[in-house]
């Protein structure tokens, strides 16, 4: 089902959503820096930054999340209380790469044996409104990783910016719940044509040549490759790429307590931090940047694919854009794919 949402009505549309839902959307914190946050009023929503620094994963898997709280009272043993989600949620303005990434994390956090209830509960109760990318960046390579700037997979509703209006597609059962909405007007063939035109133009812009196809097999042969001795050299070991990555999902669990009250909290963690794998004995199975860089890349392009059948990279380009030393994951993939002894081998910087 396809509709047209006039931009003049957009704030009203959001206002209505806020009546019934918790709404999450990109918010600008300062010029050039946006993150996904819970919205209190429509004016906060800012869709201008194509890739907000922090991805939409934060809506389902916040960087700091209280798992449960407890109070210790005498010999009674602690009373434990969990947080519950009160209202249905909407994620608005997430780009196809971020939405794809949510399904990648979902595969880990749900599963036959154990389900991460915190993630699963939020996922279940969230309707996702995707937004197509009219102007992909030069660092975008979603089309190389199986997605695209208008990939609708995972979206319940999908918006395309037509200039004065949004073209609205309802894609799933959750999306169909929006079919009666006073701000949606039936889309006409002109809208459809314009949408297609924008989609085609954007899709052509995205880099399809990053060699992701078959990377798992190639990396199988590279576990002990001298490549890793060089690849990590310029990495300074900060957590920018992993924290901003929409598919990275490692976390740390700690207790924070004062006297008798406390909480168990989980926080994002990064495999690039030395203490991530440091054991109490002092032994560190990944003692240098070499092993840690290898872990980061292998997890995305070899380990995860072995377990779930696709790469854990959606080509959003955040790790390229925000790396303090310009570690370019695309070039690492090119290197891993180059035939030994051929020209591009030495290119990795």
């Amino acid at each position, binding site marked *: 089902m396809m509709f047209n949402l006039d931009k003049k009505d957009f704030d009203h549309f959001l206002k209505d959503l806020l009546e019934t839902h918790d709404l999450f959307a990109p918010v600008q914190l300062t010029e050039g820096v946006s993150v996904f946050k819970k919205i209190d009023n429509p004016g906060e929503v800012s869709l201008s930054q194509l890739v907000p620094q922090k991805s939409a994963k934060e809506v389902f898997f916040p960087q700091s999340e209280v798992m449960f709280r407890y109070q210790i009272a005498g010999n009674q043993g602690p009373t434990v209380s969990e947080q519950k989600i009160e209202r249905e949620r909407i994620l608005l303005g997430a780009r196809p790469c971020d939405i794809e990434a949510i399904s990648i994390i979902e595969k*880990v956090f749900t599963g036959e044996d154990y389900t991460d209830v915190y993630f699963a509960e939020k996922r279940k109760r969230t309707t996702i409104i995707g937004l197509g990318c009219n102007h992909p960046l030069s660092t975008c390579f979603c089309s190389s990783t199986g997605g695209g700037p208008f990939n609708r997979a995972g979206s319940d509703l999908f918006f395309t910016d037509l200039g004065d209006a949004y073209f609205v597609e309802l894609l799933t059962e959750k999306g169909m719940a929006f079919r009666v909405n006073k701000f949606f007007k039936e889309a006409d063939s002109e809208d459809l044509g314009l949408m297609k035109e924008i989609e085609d133009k954007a899709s052509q812009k995205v880099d399809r040549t990053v060699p992701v196809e078959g990377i798992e097999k190639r990396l199988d042969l590279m576990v002990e490759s001298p490549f890793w001795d060089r690849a990590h050299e310029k990495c300074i070991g900060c957590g920018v790429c992993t924290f901003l990555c929409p598919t990275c999902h490692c976390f740390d*669990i700690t207790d924070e307590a004062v006297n008798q009250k406390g909480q168990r909290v989980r926080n994002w963690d990064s495999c690039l931090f030395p203490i991530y*794998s440091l054991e109490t004995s002092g032994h560190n199975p990944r003692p240098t940047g070499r092993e840690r860089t290898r872990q980061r890349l292998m997890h995305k392009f070899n380990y995860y694919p*072995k377990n779930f059948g696709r790469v854990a990279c959606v080509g959003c380009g955040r790790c390229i854009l925000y790396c303090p030393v310009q570690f370019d994951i695309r070039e690492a993939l090119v290197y891993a794919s180059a035939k030994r002894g051929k020209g591009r081998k030495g290119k990795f910087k």
Partner: protein
Amino acid sequence: MKNPYLPIPMILKKAEIETSDRLLRTLELGFKNKEDEESFRFIPGQFCELSILGKGEAPFGIASSPIEKTALKFTINKAGVVTTALHQIEAGSEIGIRGPLGNGYPIDFFEGKNLLVIGGGFAFTTLRSLVAYYLHPENRTKVKQITVVYGARMPGLLLYKDELLEWEKRDDIKLVTTVDWGDKDWKGKVGLVPNVLEEIAPSSENTCAVICGPPIMIKFTFPKLVALRFPNERIFTSLEKRMKCGIGKCGRCNIGHLYVCKDGPVFSYAQLEKLPKDY
């Protein structure tokens, strides 16, 4: 949805210092709730996350065996924040646990075979669970010969001394204990585990070997097992890595595409051979 991160309450029934250096303490935990007790089923080699609220959580192998119905036992090496708290906690207090976690020893695979158990230091906990499991009359016929080689730096550092004495008296288990430095009362062997293993040279015929101990011991024992013609498929070890969630979500304990917490902690050497040496 059941929340796998919520600990179930246990009560500390008894605690005992095991070793002369006072760094190892065995906790005996009883279930607070009847229904938890009934639903808790495990096999030797599995582990639990023990929680002290306010301090945190840490993983420990279950040292009791499934046939000991009354209590779960854990032996804690005092090293960090949580383990220190577990050393200080008094009988009667509440401890949270999550588990059982991990795969445990491949007891189906062991069925009908001989078992060679090699342990060093305080890594003997889940091995004790395994041996106790098979020594129980109900299970004794499941494996044939049981040989245990257990070493520690000093006699005082051996775990479960009373039990070792009992095992020594039995004729359906061969127990060899060894220490690096003996004392005047020491009657066992003196020497490093790999050398003792070489000396007693157990047959690899229809035998599975299980090694747990410090990395250095494993490193030198493994070639001895190879020399005794144990195939990699029949050598098992239980790995330790820094862990948080224990259920394959938080990420940090992976070795290649496998997670120590979920796909391990018990791995065969045939498996480990194919993985990066991230441990």
